[in-house]
């Protein structure tokens, strides 16, 4: 029993889960039962896949020892590329391909510059944050085109499931999260990612193509961010050039709350997912708790720190439990 508790608490993603449950209970009480109402859940679950998909990519990249600040801009760029192409009459599927290819190219450039010139990914992707945002504005010419009406919304945004609780995007999110999670734990590629982020010289010495592994992670991260952006635009119906601003920091925060180390090598996709849920729950719950506009950011900041502090405290407690393993 004690041993199980110890093993459980030592996993940071599970500690985050405890916190999540506590917060849900808190908000449920605070909001007089509205928090877990079907309507509210539908709201949370609608936006969750978008930040969630981005967080999956960011988490994997962080485990690989790198960092991506450009995800928020790529989030806006990919749907804008699609919208502009579709406005010119390109069919959805081709536009989608072009969008994803653009994301992959951005991820590649991020990775290539970072590795080839041995510069911190913080800088490469900070630069890319500006570049991708600028490109989004340039290709839209300042005025985003309207989306055509024959989009495959049934594939991404229609409500499904019991009580129409989820959108299709949620299904995508779950499937991709499970696949990413399996990739990290079961495949040799996941092993390489973890080794590359854990201790680069060792990974290199063991013959892992670390440059290619990192570039692949950068590309994956960008593509997931772009895909998430497309889903948001399909949901909201308009490709604004300003969407996704500031999401890069939120995504990193979610990954860290879920137990991923900024220094690489440690973390799990599940943790990132839980972190993303936590962030959405906090945001939503605070509105329901009627926090004043001026204090809102305070509460967000406080709860973010609080989540990580509790996580760290639980892990410390767990370590102190004396059971031989």
């Amino acid at each position, binding site marked *: 029993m004690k041993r199980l508790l110890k093993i459980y608490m030592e996993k940071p993603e599970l500690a985050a889960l405890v916190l999540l449950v506590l917060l849900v209970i808190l908000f449920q009480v605070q909001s007089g039962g509205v928090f877990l109402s079907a309507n509210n859940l539908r709201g949370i679950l609608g936006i969750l896949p978008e930040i969630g998909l981005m967080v999956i990519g960011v988490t994997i990249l962080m485990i690989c020892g790198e960092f991506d600040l450009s995800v928020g801009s790529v989030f806006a760029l990919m749907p804008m590329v699609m919208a502009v192409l579709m406005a010119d009459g390109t069919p959805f599927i081709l536009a989608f391909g072009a969008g994803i290819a653009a994301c992959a190219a951005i991820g590649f450039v991020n990775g290539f510059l970072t590795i080839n010139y041995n510069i911190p990914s913080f800088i490469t992707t900070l630069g890319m944050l500006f570049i991708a945002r600028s490109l989004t504005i340039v290709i839209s010419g300042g005025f985003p085109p309207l989306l055509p009406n024959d989009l495959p919304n049934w594939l991404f945004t229609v409500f499904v499931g019991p009580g129409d609780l989820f959108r299709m995007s949620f299904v995508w999110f779950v499937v991709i999260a499970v696949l990413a999670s399996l990739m990290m734990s079961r495949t040799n590629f996941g*092993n390489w990612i973890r080794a590359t982020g854990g201790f680069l010289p060792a990974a290199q010495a063991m013959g892992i193509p670390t440059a290619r592994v990192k570039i692949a992670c950068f590309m994956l991260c960008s593509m997931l961010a772009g895909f998430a952006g497309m889903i948001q635009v399909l949901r909201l119906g308009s490709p604004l050039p300003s969407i996704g601003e500031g999401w890069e920091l939120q995504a990193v925060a979610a990954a860290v709350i879920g137990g991923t180390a900024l220094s690489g090598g440690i973390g799990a996709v599940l943790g990132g997912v839980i972190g993303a849920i936590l962030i959405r729950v906090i945001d939503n719950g605070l509105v329901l708790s009627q926090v004043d506009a001026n204090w809102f950011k305070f509460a967000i900041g406080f709860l973010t720190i609080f989540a990580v502090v509790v996580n760290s405290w639980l892990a410390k407690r767990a370590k102190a439990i004396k059971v031989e393993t």
Partner: protein
Amino acid sequence: MSHPIISVRNLHKWYSGVHALKGVSLDIYPNETVGLIGDNGAGKSTLINILSGVQLASEGEIHLDGKPVRIRSPRDAMDLGIETIYQYNSMVPTMSIARNMFIGREPLKFRLFGLGVMDHKQMAAESTDAIAGAGLHLRSPDALVGELSGGQRQGVAIARAMHFKSRVMILDEPTNHLAVKETKKVIDFVRSLKDLNITGIFISHNIHHVFECCDRIVAMARGEVVLDKRAEDTSMDEILDVL
């Protein structure tokens, strides 16, 4: 005499402001075990790092089986059959022993373009065997390498190299941190390389160990080879002299 398996010609290495190798030439013959000794900073690790692809030479050539080769990465070296134990641990501290054992060479249940699903069971079983084979007693293959003692870590590195025996085996001060029994195991292993048809390069500061298990002894000083004799043609005193 047979042709050398590895032949190094006029190797130079500059680290920014340091001329670490100053024209090293060395032939290593099949199935022989070479003991490489020398002062601190003589350039031993630099030489073998070049052979195992961790560093690039600034000048000079390497021939394998008489053919010139370019070793640009550790992967290249491995593909050429060169397996290395590094002076500083090449383990990922945040990963388990079993995963560390197989980094880059994971047994796959299923593969596609080199990627696939790892066989966790096989990894656990083989690493348990390999570690026992190196004389180590460890709790479980799932323990993190970062939580091992210095000697235990070194032991895992040795177990890994012993498991993936290759054509050429380079060991850079492998017995550092190791306890008496484990050290003996390593020396025995190096001595057995010949029977396994493996060529060995063994670096150590312990001359006793070198004489115990090597056929030929190469001494380096200040980036140059200063002595290169068969073990039976030299003595500990001669070697201590040149250093």
